[in-house]
């Protein structure tokens, strides 16, 4: 039991971090990016490739994150461009459909490139004991990196001028423009940042368990569930929901099995939407 709770916390931290990227894109620009998971997978593949080419882990990871960031930038400059002339629900809907197209393209390409699903990324290590439970070194390192990244993210949004500017657009776009903030630039920044976050999560995930090249859609769905439960647009909500759902998932998985644990997560998300459409920590508009 302790082991699965610890596993759950590791997973939950990663879920939470993952969801912040998605929730920011939605809160800031009304964009639901269904290609999010695929961005993560590509970044991870690039990391492994440069490691195979002889680069040490840390620089390779940085290359991977840069890849995610560049992918975000490319999306902003190409496919998402037509979105910015739309408003409200029309924008969300089209972003969903266009990013679905991007997700399919990436999935198709990756499956073609690695047809046997053979490539799984795993940067692991030995096991050490925590509270008398064996924890893999990879898990611990992954958690540590995730926590540091979260703290950095929270500090960025609370204490820096740029971070506050991003939040101001989420709170009141017109107000933000009135103090001289360009919402488009903030959205571009967030797309780049979310790409880097997706990459980081894929990398830390691969320290705990193999990440398959076809994992993209699953990652997006997890992020979406966490985002919805935490409240679309809420950073703290995403972090909290991630940890809660991670623990629920891990306990359910060890107690009843994988399929059912996923169903429990899905049902939890559905109930949240129905009971509190704005999410756990979201505020009703």
């Amino acid at each position, binding site marked *: 039991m302790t082991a699965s709770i610890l596993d759950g916390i590791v997973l939950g931290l990663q879920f939470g971090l993952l969801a912040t990227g998605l929730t920011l894109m939605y809160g800031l620009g009304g964009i639901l990016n269904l290609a999010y998971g695929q961005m993560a997978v590509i970044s991870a593949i690039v990391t492994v490739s440069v490691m195979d080419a002889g680069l040490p882990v840390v620089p390779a990871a940085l290359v991977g994150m840069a890849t995610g960031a560049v992918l975000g930038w490319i999306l902003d400059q190409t496919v998402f461009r037509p979105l910015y002339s739309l408003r409200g629900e029309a924008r969300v809907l089209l972003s969903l459909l266009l990013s679905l197209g991007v997700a399919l393209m990436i999935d198709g390409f990756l499956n073609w490139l690695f047809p046997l699903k053979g490539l799984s990324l795993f940067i692991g290590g030995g096991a050490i004991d925590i509270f008398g439970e064996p924890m893999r070194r990879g898990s611990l390192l992954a958690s540590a990196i995730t926590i540091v990244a979260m703290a950095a993210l929270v500090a960025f949004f609370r204490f820096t*001028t740029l971070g506050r500017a991003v*939040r101001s657009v989420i709170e*009141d776009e017109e107000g933000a423009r009135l*103090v001289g903030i360009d919402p488009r630039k903030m959205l571009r920044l967030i797309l780049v940042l979310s790409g880097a976050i997706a990459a980081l999560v894929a990398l830390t995930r691969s320290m705990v368990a193999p990440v398959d090249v076809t994992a993209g859609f699953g990652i997006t769905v997890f992020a979406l569930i966490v985002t919805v439960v935490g409240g679309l647009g809420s950073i703290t909500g995403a972090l909290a929901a991630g940890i809660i759902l991670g623990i629920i998932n891990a306990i359910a998985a060890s107690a009843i099995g994988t399929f059912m644990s996923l169903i429990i997560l899905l049902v939890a998300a559905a109930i949240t939407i129905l009971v509190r459409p704005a999410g756990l920590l979201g505020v009703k508009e």
Partner: protein
Amino acid sequence: MLEVRDLSVGYEGGDVVHDVTLRVDDGEAVMVIGSNGAGKTTLFRAIVGLLRATTGTVRFDDRDITAVPTQEVVRLGLGFVPAERHLFPRMTVHENLALGAYPSRPDPETLAMVMDLFPRLAERRRQLAGTMSGGEQQMLAIGRALMAKPRLLVLDEPTTGLAPKLAAEAYEALAVLRRRGLTVLVAEQQVPLAMALCDRGYVLEGGVVTKEGSSADLADDPEVRRAYLGIA
């Protein structure tokens, strides 16, 4: 300082404001008065670039800003306080003010000036903007606009939703700012308050400027007296 020429602007259904021409000189305070729905808000939103003008030009410091986006207009030194305020409700008073100085860090002197002008904001610097009263929010909105050290402050009905005492307080603050040399353009329905502040004014009716003149002349105009001052 500000020169609006033959400006027409509206929404999808058609123009709401027609061929408006107005001028604000350095150091002046100018009012635009008119009833609800006369087009004051539409006009002001077009001036700061929140709405695209159909025809006509807006010049600020001899620079054409008709098609310049709001966020850049603001950085040129034109501050705008909308009637709905558009504060950041889940941020503290201090964070709201700090963002007013974006992209720079807040200048301590300006911050002290704003706190001095609105002591209530100093008391509540850690409070979330969304939890404050209407009057406090209005002060914060003005304060936030001042943080960018504007040379022209444009206010759309700053007394919206305020009790008479608070409305008078808001105008006292504007009078202080005026004496310090700030140029002001204000749209107002509570005409007596605006008249006391401003040198000149325009009357906007049905989207068209029907009268203009010094505050004193307008105060003597029988139609203005009947329509806006409640004097027969």
